[in-house]
């Protein structure tokens, strides 16, 4: 890390600063990043079968437009954008559609997926296009609208985990202006190194993505947020951004979970606080994009390469060789593990994502999506199974909660089936980061209680909405009869 020697001369060029704002709460889990931190990104061969989900992003699943027996080519749209908060899905490899059927996703729900046989011969009459899938654009001359359209047609969504459609995020509603573009390279989840490796190996691509996003968003300051435990990533970014013009800062954040949470990142980097829902980061003039997304945007514009693959960290003490792998979307977990030379010992728990917010999966017959940042195989000794006890009111969860709510109260309310009380305690503010459960000495599944309350509240709101709509349509039907 080098700090500018003379601040006055460097006002309009990149500098590295330490974060001046620290949010309350947060926890320090065992990071275990050393397993995969120094493993250079490797590209794995296209597996013989891909299962490409139509629901790889936040919002409405894409509408599948292929059927069994079709032959699709790499980059071809197989799922159309289906609504405003949605993105399209493209075939991540050429192959024969074996089936379109519901498949289990990492998060537990099932969604329609296209099962692709990538070893099938190209049928008569089908031409596999040569060259780039989309026309490469010169970002300097291309219009803002063209760039935005490119982000949309490339099927890009937030790759940090939530999968929010990037074209929506990069297109603020009228009257709202982006003042800060924040590139999220915190990667605060234990074990995961995918973003870290991208920053070390593809810093110049991140720079290009930032320039493109800045063009789309209009003139804005750029903040690249990295946790202090990634000095090599900070050095690589410093080199890549050294001559970038404008208000650009690499912000070094203290190592603290959940530093990568959007709201907390905004506070830590620029000191602004996103107000209560329905306010969004853009309401405080901020747009946050993950480093993986930034690289995807650069590739989509410059190379005409849609988002068909991503870096996934395969790690954990049960996997033979932890790796950071570029795999096409739809790669089965079993293929990822095979590419890592299999397992050292039988895993007791397999997690899609990190240990704090990832999903435990029942088996390896589940496929990656645009948001699969990691796959962890943990041995029996890394799996903690506890019997939950009564709350002793110690307040550790309250101190750990980065959203400043009272997880203990909520957990007790949900235990007593008093969802209204949980709602009064602001359970809807919960970001499900898991800090409360992590800190709880009574091993209470507090985060799970919060999820239960949130789901039940969402279901109630949806039911109320449906009832209101039904009542309205009933009234409208009555109207003409009179």
């Amino acid at each position, binding site marked *: 890390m080098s700090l500018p020697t003379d601040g006055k001369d460097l006002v309009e060029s990149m500098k590295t600063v330490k974060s001046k704002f620290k949010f309350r709460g947060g926890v320090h889990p065992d990071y275990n990043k050393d397993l995969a931190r120094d493993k250079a990104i490797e590209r794995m061969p296209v597996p013989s079968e891909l299962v490409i989900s139509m629901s790889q992003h936040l919002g409405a699943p894409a509408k599948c437009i292929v059927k069994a027996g079709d032959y699709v080519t790499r980059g071809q749209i197989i799922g159309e954008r289906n609504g405003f908060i949605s993105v399209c899905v493209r075939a991540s490899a050429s192959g024969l559609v074996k089936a379109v059927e519901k498949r289990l996703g990492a998060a537990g729900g099932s969604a329609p997926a296209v099962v692709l046989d990538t070893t099938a011969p190209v049928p008569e009459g089908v031409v596999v296009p040569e060259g780039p899938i989309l026309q490469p654009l010169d970002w300097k001359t291309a219009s803002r609208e063209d760039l935005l359209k490119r982000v949309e047609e490339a099927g890009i969504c937030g790759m940090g985990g939530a999968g929010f459609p990037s074209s929506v995020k990069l297109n603020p509603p009228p009257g709202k202006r982006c003042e800060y573009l924040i590139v999220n390279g915190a990667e605060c989840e234990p074990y995961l190194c995918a973003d870290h490796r991208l920053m070390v190996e593809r810093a110049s691509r991140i720079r290009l993505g930032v320039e493109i996003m800045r063009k789309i968003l209009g003139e804005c300051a750029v903040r690249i947020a990295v946790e202090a435990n990634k000095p090599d990533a900070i050095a690589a970014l410093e080199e890549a951004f050294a001559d970038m013009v404008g208000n650009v800062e690499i912000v070094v954040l203290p190592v603290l979970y959940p530093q990568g949470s959007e709201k907390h990142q905004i506070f830590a980097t620029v000191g602004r606080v996103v107000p209560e829902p329905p306010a969004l980061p853009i309401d405080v003039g901020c747009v946050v994009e993950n480093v993986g997304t930034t690289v995807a945007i650069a590739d989509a514009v410059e190379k005409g390469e849609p988002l068909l693959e991503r870096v996934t960290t395969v790690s954990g003490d049960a996997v033979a060789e932890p790796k950071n792998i570029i795999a096409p979307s739809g790669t089965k977990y079993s293929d990822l593990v095979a590419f890592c030379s299999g397992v050292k010992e039988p895993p007791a728990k397999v997690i899609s994502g990190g240990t704090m917010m990832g999903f435990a999966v029942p088996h390896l017959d589940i496929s990656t999506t645009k948001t699969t940042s990691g796959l962890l195989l943990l041995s029996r000794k890394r799996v903690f199974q506890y019997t939950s006890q*009564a709350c002793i009111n*110690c307040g550790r969860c309250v101190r750990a909660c980065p959203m400043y709510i009272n997880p203990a109260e909520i957990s007790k309310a949900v235990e007593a089936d008093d969802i209204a009380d949980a709602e009064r305690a602001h359970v809807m503010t919960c970001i499900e980061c898991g800090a409360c459960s992590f800190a709880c*000495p009574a091993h209470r599944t507090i985060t799970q209680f919060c999820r239960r309350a949130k789901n039940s509240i969402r279901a109630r709101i949806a039911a109320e909405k449906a009832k209101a709509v039904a009542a309205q349509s009933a009234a409208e039907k009555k109207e003409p009869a009179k």
Partner: protein
Amino acid sequence: MKPKETSEHYVLSSSPHAHSHASVSRIMLDVIIALLPTTIAGVWFFGMPAVWTIAVCVSTCVVTEALCRLAMKRESTIGDFSAILTGPLLALNLPAGLPLWMAVVGSVFAIAVCKQVFGGLGKNPFNPALAARAFMLISFTGPMTIWLKPYWWRAPDAVTTATPLAAMKTMFTSAALSSATPRAGEGGIPSLWDLIIGNMPGCIGEVSAAALALGAVYLFIRKVITWHIPVSYLVTVWVYSLISGGAPAHIHILTGGVMISAFFMATDYATSPTTGKGKLIFGFGCGLLSMLIRQFGSYPEGCSFAILIMNSVCPLINRWTQPKPFGYKRK
């Protein structure tokens, strides 16, 4: 279609899949360890009667807890060490030399009535050890206010005495306040050194401020308690005693159980607020009530009753001091 069944099935659970490895039993064990210095000091000053009181309280608490759980047909909770902790917490708040059957009654009351009736650890509204002490103070007023002199075995003709605060209370009520500046070693008022090491009559575990402070340091290092309650409690006592102009502030802080109350009794998780702000209010209330009872009440010490009263308003404080979520505006 159903997902293909495979032979491998892994442990499924909701995130997070990591834990800080904090546990209730470790916390209770930490408090027990933190009580060791003052326990040793109590035994040093009061001898075998202190040993017997502690032993009887601990064993009665554990047996009572086991029997209660058995009677309620619930899983045993001995393993969380909370019952083992209630034993010394109660014993250290009793005078050495108390008839042992009274210690048994108090321990049964603490566990059965003050804790298990409400559903066990974490559900009790009042600190079990203090509630039991209050119960004993009212039921066995005489024996509960007979204090062994430190090293009583050295002077076998006068083994019991009044506590410094009781002595001062008598002095202050009988004589004019202005002329009542207590002198060390006179009228039952110990010297500052004796106050710090605990060479004075009192409950087994409340006398030695130095030993209690040592235990408190351990609690802070292990992050078992936060600074809020002890600091607001002690500062309130200190400021009140300066303003009221009664006994010197250091006497109020070093005697009558203020130290053990501020660090060990008022910080009981189940019966104190969860937020920092709530803890500050709670500590302030404990300090203020302790001093009001000392000045105007008929009990010279007052800490137990002060904390019990504050225990009763703890849910209210919790309600008032709910944290404002990140990003929310104050309404």
